[in-house]
């Protein structure tokens, strides 16, 4: 396997163990206050404030609580967690330990996607070293009475298990079908106990914040989107790889850094994100504008956007868990519609029906998969109508 290009990351400059030390000197509320003050929001893409999540779990009354690290990185175009787990797994486990201390959990689970099985030995090795260094186990990190252990569990090739409740179902030995929310995992999570599920990157930032202070983090980024973010960049650009930028960066600035300024569109946030055309490249990547879990896919001038939409819909049609009707049937219908467009056989009326179906899916689907799967198709129809209507048809292509 070839090396992933990785721009300098803040994680490399953080001294191992400093964040945990600082956290263990505070009381539990102090840690949560620090994380809340930093403005850190979930780095998996949904952007839920991390401090609030930890606080809810800490406030829940239950002697058994869990910390779950979501390493089921399946969003098309995302590979930052693979790089973080390869180079900075220690920091991730440090973040999990800080969280466990803050909420009062004794057990942590890292749920690693089955496609990353080749990373398992490396990760287990780092956990072993942490146990030997007494950073895990009884009196972890030298804090009397604080006990915490981390276990690795593998996924088995299901994108939907990246959804937090589906992940918990999977951990419980069930089919990975999302649950209704509420109740949220912070109240009723793994085996019915309060659980904090966070993304790999979120835990690494939590450890970094405890080490460098919430003030430092808060000052970077925008008001609503504080701090730095790790991006996975792929597609038509000179230097694909992993980058770190402050949130609030414009798409144009990002494209300049990766060598992709001639792009005609950029998919921000993976297949479930949105497709931003060149005329909107001044928009900001932030929770209040174009949100992302870190996936940036660059489309060069020669790309056929309908083919892009087809690829995304094939993905969702295959990965829908089939539990709720809007998602199970809707993704198939939209994919069928794309094939009609490719053959030049789709009327304007039917295209509008398809868009209405997409909007219904966004409203009526049970989980994030169905609520976001029509996004790419809808934004391609909106932004590239000339490209997709009145095509010559399969025979002439």
């Amino acid at each position, binding site marked *: 396997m070839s090396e992933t290009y990785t721009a300098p990351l803040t994680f490399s400059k953080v001294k191992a163990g400093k964040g945990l030390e600082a956290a263990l000197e505070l009381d539990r509320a102090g840690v949560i206050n620090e994380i809340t003050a930093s403005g850190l929001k979930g780095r998996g893409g949904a952007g839920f404030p991390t401090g609030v999540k930890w606080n809810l779990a800490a406030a829940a009354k239950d002697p058994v609580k869990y910390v779950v690290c979501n390493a089921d990185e399946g969003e098309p*175009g995302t*590979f930052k967690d693979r790089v973080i787990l390869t180079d900075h797994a220690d920091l991730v486990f440090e973040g999990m330990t800080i969280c466990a201390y803050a909420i009062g959990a004794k057990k942590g689970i890292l749920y690693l996607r089955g496609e990353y099985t*080749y990373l398992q030995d490396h990760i287990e090795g780092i956990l072993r070293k942490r146990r030997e260094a007494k950073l895990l186990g009884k009196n972890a990190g030298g804090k009397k009475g604080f006990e915490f252990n981390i276990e690795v569990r593998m996924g088995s090739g299901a994108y939907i298990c990246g959804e937090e409740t589906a992940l918990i179902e999977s951990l419980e030995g069930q089919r990975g079908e999302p649950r209704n929310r509420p109740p949220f995992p912070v109240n009723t999570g793994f085996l019915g106990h309060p659980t904090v599920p966070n993304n790999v990157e979120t835990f690494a930032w939590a450890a970094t914040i405890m080490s460098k202070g919430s003030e430092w983090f808060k000052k970077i980024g925008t008001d609503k989107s504080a701090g730095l973010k790790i991006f996975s960049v792929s597609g*038509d650009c000179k230097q694909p790889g992993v980058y770190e930028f402050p949130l609030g960066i414009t798409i144009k600035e990002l494209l300049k850094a990766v060598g992709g300024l001639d792009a005609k569109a950029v998919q921000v946030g993976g297949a479930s994100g949105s497709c931003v055309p060149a005329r909107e490249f001044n928009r900001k990547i932030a929770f209040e504008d174009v949100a992302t879990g870190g996936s940036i896919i660059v489309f060069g001038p020669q790309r056929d956007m309908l083919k892009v939409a087809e690829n995304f819909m094939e993905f969702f049609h295959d990965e829908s868990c089939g539990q709720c009707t809007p998602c199970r049937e809707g993704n198939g219908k939209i994919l069928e519609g794309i094939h009609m467009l490719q053959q030049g056989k789709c009327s304007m009326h039917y295209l509008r029906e398809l868009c209405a179906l997409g909007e219904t899916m966004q409203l009526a689907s049970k989980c994030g998969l169905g609520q976001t799967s029509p996004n790419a198709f809808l934004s391609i129809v909106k932004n590239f109508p000339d490209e997709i209507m009145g095509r010559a048809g399969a025979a002439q292509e």
Partner: protein
Amino acid sequence: MLTPERDQLAENITKWIDQYGGNRSALLPTLQEIQKRHGRVTEYAMQVVADKLSIHPVEVYGVITFYAFLDTKYKGRFIIRLCRTISCDMAGKSRVARQLENDLGIKFGESTADGRFTLEWANCLGLCDHGPALLVNSQVFTHVTPEKVHDIIESCRKAFGAHTLQKEEVHIA
């Protein structure tokens, strides 16, 4: 399947279930162990797992059929999974796919008659900066070109027998 082998499997299943906590949440890791060592989860294995966990075997079946990496039917010794998602697609996965089909003489979703290879599509493997990418069992190959396909298949053929790409692998099916 010979009886002692069945006994051995049952013994292993008991061991794994205990190792992973002894309750329903041990189900997935136990099935993964069976899959890794035996290449599939047989009806017999499902029944044993169900008995140990005091659940109906169809519950086990339901879980197996949900996950792409668990199988009830035997697949090839080497499962080649080519990523078909957008970045690998743009990097030229279609030509790699055609070459794989040509060199193996099978279509996607099929296995070779000698039981060595199964060819499958995978959704995003998280190797988007190295496309086209594929997995052979759990080993990664990146920047695959149609030309490299032959070498990858040959390295598997050579490994067939004494050494395999997958550790701790025993086939008794």
